[in-house]
């Protein structure tokens, strides 16, 4: 990335600054294969000699404790939860991602503002409000979107955890009191938002139901073509 560009008003202190690193975002639902792909991508890039930072949503220590505590008790209003996630994202952006980009690293972001947008639109937030709220986010060099159907995600969730999680099934949205029905409806709604954003923001859409290595090869080829050549 040369001169930083933002989705909205941005961070005042970064206006017209140059960041030599590259920001690569991988988006997709839980179970779409993000972590697997990121781990493989990190190995590959490091083997190629690039310095890599991998980071994800809800890993900062600023508010992660609050979010976890609140979710356990289910005592948060929806707008409060959105703002806490947003705080957490801002903390990671400013304290991890930007310094890494300034140091010339490749940053692999396991989810970005798009997950926050999709999750919250499904919960009734206004998109314009969310987009402005998250307007301090840097525009990534590339966004990969691992697309998968809710049925596949359902079986992967069972395979991975042995059960369905309350939040990942969208039970707080009250789509159904039946957790399987809720999961399928919730993920269908999320997918709709992601598919819409794929056009809006120009994601590279990858079929998350394909073979892991096939997906990885496509990602590497795209990275080579779009990012690594001429860097």
């Amino acid at each position, binding site marked *: 990335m040369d001169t930083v560009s933002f989705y909205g008003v941005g961070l005042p202190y970064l206006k017209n600054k140059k960041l030599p690193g590259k920001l690569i975002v991988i988006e997709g639902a839980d179970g779409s294969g993000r972590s697997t792909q990121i781990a493989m991508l990190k190995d590959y890039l490091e083997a190629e000699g690039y310095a890599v930072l991998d980071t994800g949503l809800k890993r900062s220590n600023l508010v992660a404790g609050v979010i976890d505590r609140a979710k356990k008790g289910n005592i948060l209003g929806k707008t409060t939860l959105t703002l806490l996630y947003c705080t957490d994202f801002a903390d990671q952006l400013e*304290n991890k991602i930007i310094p890494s980009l300034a140091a010339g690293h490749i940053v692999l972001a396991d989810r970005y503002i798009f997950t926050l947008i999709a999750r919250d639109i499904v919960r009734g937030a206004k998109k314009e409000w969310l987009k402005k709220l998250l307007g301090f986010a840097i525009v990534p060099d590339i966004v990969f979107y691992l697309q998968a159907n809710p049925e596949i995600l359902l079986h992967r969730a069972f395979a991975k955890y042995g059960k369905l999680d309350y939040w990942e099934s969208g039970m707080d949205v009250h789509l159904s009191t039946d957790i399987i029905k809720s999961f399928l409806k919730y993920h269908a709604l999320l997918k709709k938002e992601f598919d819409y954003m794929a056009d809006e923001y120009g994601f590279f859409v990858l079929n998350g139901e394909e073979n892991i290595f096939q997906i990885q090869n496509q990602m590497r080829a795209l990275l080579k073509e779009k990012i690594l050549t001429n860097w």
Partner: protein
Amino acid sequence: MKETRAYGSSRKFSGKLFVVEGCDGSGKSTQIYLLKKWLESLNYVVYFTEWNSSDLVKEATKRAKKKNLLTPTTFSLMHASDFTDRYEKLILPHLRAGYIVLCDRYVYTAYARDMARGCDADWVKNVYSFAVKPTIAFYFRVPLDVSVSRILNGRTQLKYHEAGMDMGFSTDPVESFKAFQGIIMKNYDEMADKYFTIIDGTLPIEAQQRQVREIVKNALNNYVSPIRNNI
């Protein structure tokens, strides 16, 4: 369920919301306390809440401030989370149920402080755009040297963020506090025409309170309390 989360301005409540704003040392907390006493003496049910007091978020904010982990953006978002938690759980439900709500500081405090820290004005306003417009927002205006000396006389030490030390105006807390409060006051003054009922904070306390009560009395002309305190 799919209805967009309500924006304050478009909603109608039977409750009434009175807000006090002003710089530290403007005397606003004394005034809202006296207002509360008076309303209670008239048997109204009054709900009072103050800035930065959400059980959930307060601890995290305190910890982050202590460690000096915050940027202007995360500082703003942490306080927004605190406000929103109180708004969704306490302020809004009380208003909808028809009660009188008193707030010691409201969104205008965030506008004034966050803008002083360099956040974009429109961005901050968007963050809080879901909040209902108060029935009356009192602004207690006092000259800067008065409010500053009120604070300094009653206090042996200024807190780091309170003094705006994160702004880098000065390494001397008192000088930094003066500079920071000066910007906040300027921001308040600029908002005054649009949002505030101005009270001269240099008048005797009881004279200010007489004005406040008169204005509140008029605002409660057609108000009917949902219940009476002593019934």
